[in-house]
């Protein structure tokens, strides 16, 4: 089944000379805004995610903390992370809904060697196309947020799709819809930025001087953004990277090394062809005739 959505701004391992069909690019960018200051950590988003996507995590164990499961898995595409910090004699419970950030410059897509296994839609959604996934795991190394997970059973990588199947028919992602406190919002990226501004102002007026929006520039901005009360120290929220960047190794490999090698191949063939035209094929000495003679 190949739906002609024709809105792929980027497609993994695809030559720039033949870009993916993207004529239908006049789409507003969408974004999910997660306000950690409103989140109560109820995990409705986790349940709604598994419900909509027909994934069921195995029943786990109590590890002495609320995190369950402890980490993202091939079947848990969003997970709540809880962190307790004590500062100035005050305890703070920082809860963050973790999952794919849907970067504008996705490290996974850049690292992926399989044509069309990772695509970026015009609305900003980064999706994995399992059909083309070869299970190499390069996207895991390429992701600055450590999000994709390899499923050992089918050797394919999975992550949040931002409910691309819902968004493409005009609905909101399942986690957004279910959130009982309204901590997860969804709309155009522009609207979400405005909403975030209001929330940041509100938080500042309540004494959170360092409140701010998390929309990191290092990956070109994201389509999942956070409102943080401590935007100056995002790492407090269970290791949210302060300045996420695509690994320089991925940049070197795909940005410099790969084109160089491609040029090397082309040059080799060109040299061979030129040699053939200029010098011609090596003629074998006809031993049989010599023997006859």
């Amino acid at each position, binding site marked *: 089944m190949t739906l002609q959505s024709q809105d792929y701004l980027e497609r993994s391992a695809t030559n720039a000379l033949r870009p993916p069909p993207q004529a239908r690019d006049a789409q507003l960018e969408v974004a999910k805004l997660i306000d950690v200051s409103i989140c109560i950590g109820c995990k409705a988003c986790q349940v*709604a995610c598994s419900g909509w996507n027909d994934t069921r995590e195995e029943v786990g164990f109590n590890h002495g903390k609320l995190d369950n499961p402890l980490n993202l898995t091939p079947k848990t595409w969003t997970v709540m992370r809880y962190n307790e910090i004590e500062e100035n004699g005050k305890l703070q419970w920082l809860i963050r809904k973790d999952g794919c950030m849907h970067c504008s410059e996705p490290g996974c897509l850049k690292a992926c060697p399989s044509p*069309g296994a990772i695509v970026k839609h015009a609305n900003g959604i980064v*999706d994995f196309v399992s059909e083309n996934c070869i299970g190499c795991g390069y996207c895991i190394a390429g992701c600055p947020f450590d999000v994709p997970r390899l499923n050992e059973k089918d050797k394919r990588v999975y992550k949040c799709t931002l409910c*691309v199947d819902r968004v493409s028919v005009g609905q909101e992602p399942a986690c957004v819809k*279910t959130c009982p406190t309204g901590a997860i919002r969804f709309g155009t990226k522009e609207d979400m930025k405005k909403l975030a501004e209001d929330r940041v102002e509100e938080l500042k007026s309540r004494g959170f001087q360092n409140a701010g929006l998390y929309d990191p520039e290092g990956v070109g901005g994201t389509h999942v953004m956070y409102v943080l009360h401590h935007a100056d120290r995002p790492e407090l929220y269970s290791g949210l990277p302060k300045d996420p960047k695509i690994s320089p190794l991925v940049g070197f490999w795909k940005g410099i090394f790969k084109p160089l090698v491609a040029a090397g*191949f082309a040059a080799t063939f060109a040299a061979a062809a030129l040699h053939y035209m200029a010098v011609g094929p090596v003629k074998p000495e006809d031993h049989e005739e010599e023997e006859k003679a």
Partner: protein
Amino acid sequence: MQVTRRQFFKICSGGMAGTTLATLGFAPGAALADVRAYKLLRARETRNTCPYCSVGCGLLMYSRSDGAGNVKESIFHIEGDPDHPVSRGALCPKGAGLVDFVHSQDRLRYPEVREAGSKEWKRISWEEALDRIARHIKNDRDANFVERNASGVTVNRYNTTGLFACTATSNEAGYLTLKLARSLGMVSVDHVARI
């Protein structure tokens, strides 16, 4: 087919060149990317109210089949009802997980009784269950009904049994529940709808 050594080398190098170019990304790749098909497209949508707490969030339940007579319908997805004034589409983790509750093997499907002294639950019919409950209530009420209090005021209280009616229901069902309990003189009554 006769292939000379020279021809064999030509075929091999030609094949190598082709595959190399393809892996370098020069092949006109088919745009096989697609989004997952929307799974609710023609599913039957039924409204209901979440059975858990007294907030009474609205549900949309989706069952397979478009209503054809030959199909046994089965709920495969439940999410919040955005038109519901109470919840506007939101559901807590319990409500969001209702589809597994519907199909749970541990779900109570029929009346059961654990006889005094027994460890086992035994399935009984609705008729038997209702008869036994009515008998217990009658015996208990006859023994413990309080017609007048200590100062001789008529109170008509039935204090030794309470009624806990569950699940979010309509106003009418709530009214009937309350009417049944109060007509017996029952004081301890609770209900998810907090009647």
